Protein backbone atom coordinates (compact mmCIF):
# COMPACT_ATOMS: atom_id res chain seq x y z
CA UNK A 1 0.00 0.00 0.00
CA UNK A 2 1.25 3.46 -0.84
CA UNK A 3 2.09 5.57 2.20
CA UNK A 4 0.70 8.69 0.54
CA UNK A 5 -2.88 8.34 1.85
CA UNK A 6 -1.53 7.97 5.40
CA UNK A 7 0.64 11.05 4.92
CA UNK A 8 -2.41 13.01 3.70
CA UNK A 9 -4.52 11.77 6.60
CA UNK A 10 -1.83 12.79 9.10
CA UNK A 11 -1.64 16.26 7.52
CA UNK A 12 -5.40 16.73 7.93
CA UNK A 13 -5.11 15.79 11.62
CA UNK A 14 -2.01 17.89 12.22
CA UNK A 15 -3.03 21.00 10.28
CA UNK A 16 -6.32 21.33 12.19
CA UNK A 17 -4.44 21.39 15.49
CA UNK A 18 -1.57 23.55 14.27
CA UNK A 19 -3.79 26.24 12.76
CA UNK A 20 -6.32 26.26 15.61
CA UNK A 21 -3.45 26.18 18.12
CA UNK A 22 -1.84 29.19 16.45
CA UNK A 23 -5.15 31.04 16.45
CA UNK A 24 -5.63 30.27 20.14
CA UNK A 25 -2.09 31.47 20.89
CA UNK A 26 -3.03 34.89 19.49
CA UNK A 27 -4.90 35.44 22.77
CA UNK A 28 -1.65 35.29 24.73
CA UNK A 29 -1.46 38.62 26.57
CA UNK A 30 -4.99 39.60 25.47
CA UNK A 31 -7.21 37.33 27.60
CA UNK A 32 -10.20 38.92 29.33
CA UNK A 33 -8.80 37.90 32.74
CA UNK A 34 -5.39 36.56 33.72
CA UNK A 35 -6.64 33.03 34.45
CA UNK A 36 -8.27 32.82 31.02
CA UNK A 37 -5.20 34.21 29.31
CA UNK A 38 -3.19 31.39 30.90
CA UNK A 39 -5.88 28.83 30.07
CA UNK A 40 -5.94 29.74 26.37
CA UNK A 41 -2.13 29.65 26.23
CA UNK A 42 -2.28 26.16 27.78
CA UNK A 43 -4.82 24.97 25.20
CA UNK A 44 -2.70 26.40 22.38
CA UNK A 45 0.40 24.67 23.74
CA UNK A 46 -1.35 21.29 23.83
CA UNK A 47 -2.75 21.69 20.32
CA UNK A 48 0.56 22.76 18.81
CA UNK A 49 2.26 19.91 20.69
CA UNK A 50 -0.20 17.42 19.20
CA UNK A 51 0.47 18.87 15.74
CA UNK A 52 4.19 18.54 16.37
CA UNK A 53 3.88 14.81 17.15
CA UNK A 54 1.66 14.24 14.11
CA UNK A 55 3.92 16.16 11.72
CA UNK A 56 6.99 14.35 13.05
CA UNK A 57 5.27 11.07 12.26
CA UNK A 58 4.03 12.39 8.89
CA UNK A 59 7.61 13.27 7.96
CA UNK A 60 8.79 9.71 8.63
CA UNK A 61 5.86 8.33 6.61
CA UNK A 62 6.55 10.64 3.68
CA UNK A 63 10.29 9.77 3.53
CA UNK A 64 10.98 12.96 1.55
CA UNK A 65 13.78 14.28 3.77
CA UNK A 66 11.75 17.09 5.24
CA UNK A 67 11.08 17.23 8.96
CA UNK A 68 8.18 18.50 11.07
CA UNK A 69 9.50 22.07 10.98
CA UNK A 70 9.69 22.02 7.19
CA UNK A 71 6.10 20.75 7.06
CA UNK A 72 4.90 23.50 9.40
CA UNK A 73 6.91 26.45 8.12
CA UNK A 74 7.58 25.76 4.46
CA UNK A 75 4.19 24.75 3.12
CA UNK A 76 1.97 27.42 1.57
CA UNK A 77 -1.74 27.85 2.28
CA UNK A 78 -2.74 25.74 -0.73
CA UNK A 79 -0.82 22.78 0.76
CA UNK A 80 -2.55 23.04 4.15
CA UNK A 81 -5.36 20.55 4.79
CA UNK A 82 -7.04 22.00 7.89
CA UNK A 83 -10.81 22.48 8.05
CA UNK A 84 -11.90 26.07 7.40
CA UNK A 85 -13.35 26.27 10.93
CA UNK A 86 -9.84 26.24 12.41
CA UNK A 87 -8.50 29.18 10.40
CA UNK A 88 -11.33 31.70 10.92
CA UNK A 89 -10.27 34.77 12.90
CA UNK A 90 -10.78 34.65 16.67
CA UNK A 91 -13.49 37.31 16.71
CA UNK A 92 -14.52 38.16 20.26
CA UNK A 93 -14.11 35.88 23.27
CA UNK A 94 -17.51 34.32 22.50
CA UNK A 95 -16.48 33.22 18.99
CA UNK A 96 -13.15 31.92 20.32
CA UNK A 97 -14.80 29.84 23.04
CA UNK A 98 -17.69 28.55 20.93
CA UNK A 99 -15.24 27.43 18.22
CA UNK A 100 -13.03 25.81 20.85
CA UNK A 101 -16.10 23.93 22.07
CA UNK A 102 -17.48 22.90 18.65
CA UNK A 103 -14.08 21.72 17.48
CA UNK A 104 -13.23 20.29 20.91
CA UNK A 105 -16.16 17.85 20.91
CA UNK A 106 -15.14 16.71 17.43
CA UNK A 107 -11.54 16.36 18.55
CA UNK A 108 -12.44 14.19 21.57
CA UNK A 109 -14.52 11.87 19.38
CA UNK A 110 -11.82 11.67 16.72
CA UNK A 111 -8.96 10.99 19.19
CA UNK A 112 -11.10 8.40 20.92
CA UNK A 113 -11.68 6.58 17.62
CA UNK A 114 -8.02 6.90 16.58
CA UNK A 115 -6.79 5.59 19.95
CA UNK A 116 -8.01 2.19 18.68
CA UNK A 117 -6.04 2.51 15.41
CA UNK A 118 -4.04 -0.50 14.27
CA UNK A 119 -1.18 1.93 13.60
CA UNK A 120 0.65 1.90 16.95
CA UNK A 121 2.21 5.35 16.59
CA UNK A 122 -1.06 7.01 15.65
CA UNK A 123 -2.92 5.15 18.42
CA UNK A 124 -0.31 6.33 20.94
CA UNK A 125 -0.51 9.98 19.88
CA UNK A 126 -4.31 9.75 19.93
CA UNK A 127 -4.51 8.20 23.42
CA UNK A 128 -2.27 10.93 24.79
CA UNK A 129 -4.10 13.75 22.97
CA UNK A 130 -7.49 12.41 24.06
CA UNK A 131 -6.70 13.18 27.70
CA UNK A 132 -5.87 16.77 26.77
CA UNK A 133 -8.83 17.22 24.43
CA UNK A 134 -11.16 16.14 27.23
CA UNK A 135 -10.20 18.99 29.52
CA UNK A 136 -10.13 21.40 26.57
CA UNK A 137 -13.77 20.67 25.79
CA UNK A 138 -14.73 20.72 29.47
CA UNK A 139 -13.21 24.17 29.85
CA UNK A 140 -14.78 25.55 26.67
CA UNK A 141 -18.14 23.87 27.39
CA UNK A 142 -18.36 25.43 30.85
CA UNK A 143 -17.73 28.83 29.27
CA UNK A 144 -20.37 28.25 26.59
CA UNK A 145 -22.94 27.57 29.35
CA UNK A 146 -21.76 30.59 31.37
CA UNK A 147 -21.89 32.94 28.38
CA UNK A 148 -25.10 31.61 26.87
CA UNK A 149 -26.97 31.49 30.18
CA UNK A 150 -25.35 34.70 31.42
CA UNK A 151 -26.24 38.32 30.75
CA UNK A 152 -28.29 39.55 27.78
CA UNK A 153 -25.11 40.76 26.12
CA UNK A 154 -23.12 37.55 26.70
CA UNK A 155 -26.09 35.50 25.46
CA UNK A 156 -26.42 37.65 22.34
CA UNK A 157 -22.73 37.36 21.52
CA UNK A 158 -22.63 33.61 22.17
CA UNK A 159 -25.62 33.10 19.87
CA UNK A 160 -23.96 35.22 17.14
CA UNK A 161 -20.87 33.02 17.55
CA UNK A 162 -22.90 29.82 17.11
CA UNK A 163 -24.68 31.24 14.04
CA UNK A 164 -21.41 32.43 12.50
CA UNK A 165 -19.48 29.21 13.04
CA UNK A 166 -22.20 26.66 12.37
CA UNK A 167 -21.86 26.56 8.53
CA UNK A 168 -18.19 25.60 9.03
CA UNK A 169 -18.88 22.52 11.15
CA UNK A 170 -20.13 20.29 8.31
CA UNK A 171 -16.69 20.02 6.73
CA UNK A 172 -15.37 18.22 9.81
CA UNK A 173 -17.52 15.20 8.95
CA UNK A 174 -16.83 14.98 5.21
CA UNK A 175 -14.83 11.80 4.82
CA UNK A 176 -11.98 12.20 2.27
CA UNK A 177 -12.16 9.70 -0.59
CA UNK A 178 -8.45 8.82 -0.43
CA UNK A 179 -8.86 7.43 3.10
CA UNK A 180 -11.15 4.52 2.22
CA UNK A 181 -8.41 1.91 2.33
CA UNK A 182 -6.98 3.27 5.59
CA UNK A 183 -10.42 3.11 7.20
CA UNK A 184 -10.97 -0.42 5.90
CA UNK A 185 -7.62 -1.45 7.38
CA UNK A 186 -8.48 0.05 10.78
CA UNK A 187 -5.70 2.66 10.52
CA UNK A 188 -7.83 5.81 10.53
CA UNK A 189 -11.42 6.55 11.54
CA UNK A 190 -14.29 7.50 9.24
CA UNK A 191 -15.18 11.04 10.42
CA UNK A 192 -18.68 10.85 8.94
CA UNK A 193 -19.50 8.27 11.65
CA UNK A 194 -18.68 10.79 14.38
CA UNK A 195 -21.33 13.29 13.35
CA UNK A 196 -24.28 11.83 15.26
CA UNK A 197 -22.40 11.64 18.57
CA UNK A 198 -21.14 15.19 17.98
CA UNK A 199 -24.65 16.50 17.42
CA UNK A 200 -25.89 14.89 20.63
CA UNK A 201 -23.05 16.30 22.76
CA UNK A 202 -23.24 19.77 21.22
CA UNK A 203 -27.06 19.92 21.49
CA UNK A 204 -26.84 19.02 25.18
CA UNK A 205 -24.51 21.90 26.01
CA UNK A 206 -26.32 24.40 23.76
CA UNK A 207 -29.58 23.54 25.49
CA UNK A 208 -28.03 24.13 28.94
CA UNK A 209 -26.59 27.37 27.58
CA UNK A 210 -30.05 28.46 26.30
CA UNK A 211 -28.53 28.74 22.82
CA UNK A 212 -29.96 27.33 19.60
CA UNK A 213 -28.26 25.78 16.60
CA UNK A 214 -29.30 27.43 13.31
CA UNK A 215 -31.35 25.33 10.96
CA UNK A 216 -29.10 25.90 8.00
CA UNK A 217 -28.29 22.93 5.82
CA UNK A 218 -25.70 24.78 3.74
CA UNK A 219 -22.17 23.95 4.78
CA UNK A 220 -18.91 25.59 3.74
CA UNK A 221 -16.09 23.36 2.56
CA UNK A 222 -12.69 23.54 0.87
CA UNK A 223 -9.98 23.39 3.52
CA UNK A 224 -9.41 19.65 3.17
CA UNK A 225 -8.69 20.19 -0.55
CA UNK A 226 -6.43 23.20 0.05
CA UNK A 227 -9.06 25.77 -0.89
CA UNK A 228 -8.88 28.16 2.03
CA UNK A 229 -10.32 31.48 3.12
CA UNK A 230 -8.04 34.49 2.80
CA UNK A 231 -7.49 34.31 6.57
CA UNK A 232 -5.14 31.30 6.42
CA UNK A 233 -2.59 33.16 4.29
CA UNK A 234 -2.38 35.95 6.85
CA UNK A 235 -2.06 33.47 9.70
CA UNK A 236 0.71 31.54 7.95
CA UNK A 237 2.54 34.76 7.06
CA UNK A 238 2.85 35.54 10.74
CA UNK A 239 3.56 31.96 11.81
CA UNK A 240 6.18 31.30 9.14
CA UNK A 241 7.99 34.63 8.81
CA UNK A 242 10.86 33.91 11.20
CA UNK A 243 11.57 30.43 9.85
CA UNK A 244 11.47 31.65 6.25
CA UNK A 245 13.58 34.74 6.92
CA UNK A 246 16.26 32.68 8.64
CA UNK A 247 16.15 29.19 7.14
CA UNK A 248 18.02 26.55 9.16
CA UNK A 249 18.58 28.98 12.03
CA UNK A 250 19.14 27.28 15.40
CA UNK A 251 18.05 28.75 18.70
Amino acid sequence: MSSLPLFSALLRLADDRLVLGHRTSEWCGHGPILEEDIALANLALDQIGQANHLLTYAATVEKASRDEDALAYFRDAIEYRNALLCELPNGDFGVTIVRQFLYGVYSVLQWDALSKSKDGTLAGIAAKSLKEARYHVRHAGEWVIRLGDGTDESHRRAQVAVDTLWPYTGELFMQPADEAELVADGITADVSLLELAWEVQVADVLRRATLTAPETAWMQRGGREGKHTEHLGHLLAEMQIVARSHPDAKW
Partner: protein
Amino acid sequence: MVATAYDRERVFAWLEEVKDPEVPVLSVVELGVVRDAVVDADGAVTVTVTPTYSGCPAIRVIEESIHDTLLAKGVLRVTVQTVFTPAWTTDWIPETARAKLEAYGIAPPGLAHTSDELVPLRRAGTGPRCPFCKSANTALRSEFGSTACKALWVCAECTQPFEEFKAI
Protein backbone atom coordinates in the same frame (compact mmCIF):
# COMPACT_ATOMS: atom_id res chain seq x y z
CA MET B 1 36.81 -5.41 25.36
CA VAL B 2 36.14 -4.38 28.94
CA ALA B 3 33.16 -5.39 31.01
CA THR B 4 30.59 -2.65 31.33
CA ALA B 5 30.93 -0.92 34.70
CA TYR B 6 27.25 -0.11 34.95
CA ASP B 7 23.93 -1.88 34.58
CA ARG B 8 20.29 -0.85 34.22
CA GLU B 9 19.92 -0.32 37.97
CA ARG B 10 22.94 1.97 38.09
CA VAL B 11 21.67 3.97 35.12
CA PHE B 12 18.31 4.45 36.86
CA ALA B 13 20.14 5.65 40.00
CA TRP B 14 22.00 8.20 37.86
CA LEU B 15 18.76 9.30 36.24
CA GLU B 16 17.38 10.12 39.72
CA GLU B 17 19.75 13.10 39.55
CA VAL B 18 17.95 14.51 36.48
CA LYS B 19 15.19 16.78 37.75
CA ASP B 20 12.12 18.11 35.98
CA PRO B 21 13.17 21.69 35.12
CA GLU B 22 9.70 22.99 35.99
CA VAL B 23 9.21 20.92 39.16
CA PRO B 24 12.82 20.60 40.37
CA VAL B 25 11.82 18.57 43.43
CA LEU B 26 10.96 15.55 41.26
CA SER B 27 13.32 13.42 39.21
CA VAL B 28 12.40 12.33 35.71
CA VAL B 29 12.21 8.77 37.06
CA GLU B 30 9.76 9.72 39.83
CA LEU B 31 7.72 11.70 37.33
CA GLY B 32 7.34 8.57 35.19
CA VAL B 33 8.88 10.22 32.14
CA VAL B 34 11.65 7.60 32.00
CA ARG B 35 10.05 4.35 30.89
CA ASP B 36 13.12 2.19 30.41
CA ALA B 37 16.87 2.13 30.08
CA VAL B 38 18.76 -0.55 28.18
CA VAL B 39 22.50 -1.08 28.46
CA ASP B 40 23.98 -3.01 25.54
CA ALA B 41 27.14 -5.12 25.52
CA ASP B 42 29.29 -2.19 24.37
CA GLY B 43 28.05 0.02 27.20
CA ALA B 44 25.81 2.17 25.01
CA VAL B 45 22.65 3.22 26.82
CA THR B 46 19.24 3.72 25.27
CA VAL B 47 16.79 5.61 27.47
CA THR B 48 13.11 5.51 26.56
CA VAL B 49 11.04 8.51 27.61
CA THR B 50 7.41 9.51 27.22
CA PRO B 51 6.19 13.12 27.22
CA THR B 52 3.90 14.35 30.00
CA TYR B 53 1.75 16.78 27.99
CA SER B 54 1.94 16.99 24.19
CA GLY B 55 3.01 20.61 24.34
CA CYS B 56 5.26 20.41 27.39
CA PRO B 57 8.25 22.60 26.49
CA ALA B 58 10.37 20.88 29.16
CA ILE B 59 10.66 17.57 27.28
CA ARG B 60 13.56 18.75 25.08
CA VAL B 61 15.45 20.04 28.13
CA ILE B 62 14.78 16.75 29.91
CA GLU B 63 16.13 14.74 26.97
CA GLU B 64 19.28 16.89 26.85
CA SER B 65 19.75 16.59 30.63
CA ILE B 66 19.46 12.80 30.46
CA HIS B 67 21.99 12.72 27.65
CA ASP B 68 24.48 15.05 29.34
CA THR B 69 24.14 13.49 32.80
CA LEU B 70 24.84 9.96 31.53
CA LEU B 71 27.81 11.13 29.45
CA ALA B 72 29.20 12.86 32.54
CA LYS B 73 28.91 9.55 34.42
CA GLY B 74 31.14 7.93 31.82
CA VAL B 75 28.58 6.36 29.51
CA LEU B 76 30.12 6.31 26.04
CA ARG B 77 27.02 6.61 23.93
CA VAL B 78 23.53 7.73 24.92
CA THR B 79 20.39 7.53 22.80
CA VAL B 80 17.11 8.99 24.02
CA GLN B 81 14.01 7.73 22.24
CA THR B 82 10.37 8.74 22.65
CA VAL B 83 7.34 6.47 22.98
CA PHE B 84 3.68 7.48 23.29
CA THR B 85 2.25 4.20 24.51
CA PRO B 86 1.15 3.76 27.22
CA ALA B 87 0.09 7.39 27.59
CA TRP B 88 1.68 9.12 30.56
CA THR B 89 -0.44 9.34 33.70
CA THR B 90 0.14 11.01 37.07
CA ASP B 91 -0.88 7.69 38.64
CA TRP B 92 2.73 6.58 37.99
CA ILE B 93 4.08 9.11 40.52
CA PRO B 94 4.94 7.13 43.70
CA GLU B 95 3.87 8.08 47.24
CA THR B 96 7.38 9.20 48.21
CA ALA B 97 7.41 11.67 45.32
CA ARG B 98 3.91 12.91 46.19
CA ALA B 99 5.14 13.74 49.70
CA LYS B 100 8.05 15.69 48.18
CA LEU B 101 5.62 17.65 46.01
CA GLU B 102 3.45 18.62 48.97
CA ALA B 103 6.48 19.65 51.05
CA TYR B 104 7.54 21.82 48.11
CA GLY B 105 4.16 23.60 48.16
CA ILE B 106 2.48 21.81 45.25
CA ALA B 107 -0.56 19.68 46.04
CA PRO B 108 0.03 16.17 44.65
CA PRO B 109 -2.37 14.78 42.03
CA GLY B 110 -5.39 12.71 42.98
CA LEU B 111 -6.27 9.56 41.06
CA ALA B 112 -6.74 10.12 37.34
CA HIS B 113 -10.24 9.28 36.25
CA THR B 114 -12.32 10.01 33.23
CA SER B 115 -15.96 10.85 33.46
CA ASP B 116 -18.26 9.76 30.67
CA GLU B 117 -19.80 13.18 30.67
CA LEU B 118 -17.93 15.61 28.43
CA VAL B 119 -19.08 18.79 30.15
CA PRO B 120 -20.21 17.92 33.68
CA LEU B 121 -22.37 20.54 35.39
CA ARG B 122 -20.74 19.79 38.71
CA ARG B 123 -17.24 18.53 39.23
CA ALA B 124 -16.94 15.10 40.79
CA GLY B 125 -14.74 14.49 43.80
CA THR B 126 -13.15 16.80 46.31
CA GLY B 127 -10.23 19.13 45.80
CA PRO B 128 -6.70 18.76 47.13
CA ARG B 129 -5.87 19.79 50.67
CA CYS B 130 -3.83 22.95 51.12
CA PRO B 131 -0.12 21.99 51.08
CA PHE B 132 0.57 24.78 53.60
CA CYS B 133 -2.05 24.51 56.37
CA LYS B 134 -3.47 21.09 55.30
CA SER B 135 -7.04 22.39 55.27
CA ALA B 136 -9.50 20.59 52.99
CA ASN B 137 -11.42 23.83 52.55
CA THR B 138 -9.96 24.77 49.17
CA ALA B 139 -11.43 26.15 45.94
CA LEU B 140 -10.39 25.79 42.32
CA ARG B 141 -9.36 29.12 40.87
CA SER B 142 -8.40 27.90 37.40
CA GLU B 143 -7.83 24.53 35.81
CA PHE B 144 -4.72 26.03 34.19
CA GLY B 145 -1.60 27.20 36.00
CA SER B 146 1.93 28.36 35.35
CA THR B 147 2.75 25.13 33.50
CA ALA B 148 0.65 22.65 31.55
CA CYS B 149 0.72 20.15 34.41
CA LYS B 150 -0.67 22.39 37.15
CA ALA B 151 -3.98 23.93 38.23
CA LEU B 152 -4.47 26.98 40.44
CA TRP B 153 -6.26 26.67 43.80
CA VAL B 154 -6.77 28.92 46.76
CA CYS B 155 -7.08 27.88 50.41
CA ALA B 156 -10.14 29.30 52.18
CA GLU B 157 -8.54 28.74 55.64
CA CYS B 158 -5.12 30.34 55.28
CA THR B 159 -5.98 32.32 52.07
CA GLN B 160 -2.82 30.98 50.42
CA PRO B 161 -3.05 30.44 46.66
CA PHE B 162 -1.31 27.20 45.65
CA GLU B 163 -0.80 24.94 42.67
CA GLU B 164 -1.99 21.39 42.24
CA PHE B 165 -0.30 18.83 40.03
CA LYS B 166 -3.26 17.92 37.80
CA ALA B 167 -4.40 14.31 37.73
CA ILE B 168 -4.36 13.10 34.16
